[in-house]
């Protein structure tokens, strides 16, 4: 009575069509292919050629996955196009929000004198390095011109707590305006915690302010990076951390590290320090080129290779921790994994295309200058004003946002029309980095073949793909990282 038909009856035999995708070599002759929304598959070279010639057999083990991940389709199928369009739209939807991160540099005064910092100046008293209320008001006008329903205001310096009155001024003024604006308003203060007082903490608690601090590693490493009169940066940090957590809550204090060449041999110790202090993740940051004189060749080859070793060792240690039952995240990997494994974009300024400068983040400096990004400001402090967009006191929102400086940088660095980037399989995971490339190459595009940004990121992309392919539990862990809020 069998009216049932076998699998053959439902297997299509027409020739398939290729959907848009890119490919690049992984290891040896193994390739990775990526579709328009960043979904990927590993394919061996001979298979890739057969695939491209549209000769891949339906029975081939890869065939079903190629179809499911929208690398191929049959010409009469509409669903793959609708789904790709939907995913693409989701990925791009963050752009319509426009600028979300607004950095207020309230003072250049600082109680530390870190060697790699370009921006800090004298200690107390000197108020000519402080932002004025006038500038703050105009900056807030600018902030609320952004259409984004979620606005983040971050205070930086120097040490913002040295001009706490300005922090207070901006927070209170912003909240007053927000009664009408009704945005989702978030405040962050980037501080070393060395100058935390009860009064400051009470204010932060009242207004739900997050503290973003620096932790470079164990005490000796941290103190070596962060000289302070009294040589007690770490001790003050640790005391401030406990106090802040107590008043604000453990989730309201986050830490970022600065990586110097002293950090490179000590990644496990640095992670251990984060674990010891109860942080649930670390952002293994790249070496910043801004602090050092930009030594192109040395910086490029030795330092990038050495940094990659540092990164991979750190990531491996973190995976061990997770296997041992200690949830701990590497944040840079999380950002990338979000782009690889979901249709969401993490909105991380340095990994955006079009570049995040201006359109995702903007900086209001203590002197009224407006910069396209934090890097732009640092570049200016080194003498290069290329990415200064204007003056908050004299220029209008349109002057600044529509300035040629900004628009040219965005357009020229756009990866989908950049040499090497436009063909690169990893482009969906990467970003345009006009300021960095301008700093190194004096050109917003840069020569990617010589760019440490490119080399570093490409190596990490391949590394993460390799890790996921070799171990299902790592793959699942990475999916969790990619989907964390």
């Amino acid at each position, binding site marked *: 009575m069998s009216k049932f038909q076998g699998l053959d009856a439902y297997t299509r035999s027409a020739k398939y*069509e*290729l*959907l*848009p*995708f*890119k*490919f*690049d*070599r992984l290891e040896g002759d193994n390739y990775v292919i990526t579709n*328009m929304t960043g979904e990927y598959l590993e394919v061996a070279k001979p298979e890739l*050629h057969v695939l*491209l010639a549209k000769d891949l057999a339906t029975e081939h083990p890869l065939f079903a996955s190629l179809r499911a991940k929208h690398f191929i389709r049959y010409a009469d199928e509409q669903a793959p*196009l*609708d789904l*790709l*369009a*939907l995913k*693409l*739209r*989701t990925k*791009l*939807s963050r752009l319509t929000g426009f600028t979300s991160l607004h950095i207020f540099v309230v003072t250049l005064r600082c109680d530390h004198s870190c060697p790699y910092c370009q921006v800090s100046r004298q200690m107390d008293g000197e108020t000519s390095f402080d932002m004025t209320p006038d500038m703050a008001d105009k900056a807030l006008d600018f902030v609320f011109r952004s259409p984004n329903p979620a606005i983040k205001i971050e205070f930086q310096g120097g040490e913002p707590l040295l001009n706490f009155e300005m922090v207070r001024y901006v927070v209170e003024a912003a909240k007053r305006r927000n009664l009408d604006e009704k945005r989702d308003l978030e405040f962050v203060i980037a501080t070393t915690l060395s100058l935390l007082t009860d009064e400051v903490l009470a204010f932060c608690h009242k207004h739900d302010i997050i503290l973003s601090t620096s932790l470079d590693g164990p005490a000796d490493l941290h103190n070596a990076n962060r000289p302070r009169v009294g040589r007690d940066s770490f001790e003050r940090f640790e005391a401030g951390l406990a106090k802040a957590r107590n008043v604000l809550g453990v989730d309201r204090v986050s830490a970022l590290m600065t990586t110097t060449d002293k950090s490179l041999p000590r990644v496990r110790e640095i992670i251990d320090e984060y674990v010891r202090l109860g942080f649930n993740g670390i952002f293994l940051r790249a070496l910043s080129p801004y602090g050092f004189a930009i030594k192109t*060749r040395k910086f490029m080859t030795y330092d990038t290779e050495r940094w990659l070793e540092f990164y991979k060792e750190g990531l491996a240690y973190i995976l061990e921790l997770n296997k041992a039952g200690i949830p701990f995240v590497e944040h840079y990997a999380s950002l990338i994994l979000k782009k690889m494994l979901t249709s969401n974009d993490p909105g991380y300024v340095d990994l955006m295309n079009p570049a995040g400068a201006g359109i995702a983040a903007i900086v209001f400096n203590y002197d009224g200058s407006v910069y396209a990004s934090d890097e732009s400001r640092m570049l200016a402090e080194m003498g290069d004003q290329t990415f200064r967009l204007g003056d908050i006191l004299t220029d209008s929102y349109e002057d600044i946002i529509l300035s040629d400086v900004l628009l040219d940088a965005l357009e020229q660095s756009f990866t989908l029309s950049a*040499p*090497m980037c436009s*063909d690169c399989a990893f482009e969906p995971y990467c970003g345009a980095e006009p300021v960095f490339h301008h700093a190194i190459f004096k050109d917003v595009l840069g*020569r990617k*073949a*010589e760019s440490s940004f490119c080399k570093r990121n490409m190596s990490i992309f391949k590394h993460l793909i390799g890790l996921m392919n070799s171990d299902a539990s790592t793959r699942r862990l990475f999916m969790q990282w990619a989907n964390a809020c």
Partner: protein
Amino acid sequence: MAGLAELIFDGQLYGAEAIQKAAYRAMHAFTLDLKVDGDNILCTLVGNITTEQEAFERAVEEFRKDVLDYQLRAQLQAETAPIRNLIIGLAFSNARLNPSE
């Protein structure tokens, strides 16, 4: 002593653009002189002063693979350009899309 290599590509099979793109990718190791001679494309690869011989040779090998890859990419790009535009059009059109909006 800078590395030096000469390669000949069949102009029927490989476009100059593929070769140039592959060379761009390799510029950390060498620079390229390109000359068309009838049906052939003659390539002279001149290693950078700072590139050692072994690194240069590895770069040449990668270059040869890259030329083929870029040639294939060009074909793939040409073939899928219409459908890519269709998908982008769908993505940007107001109608129909985004269930979660």
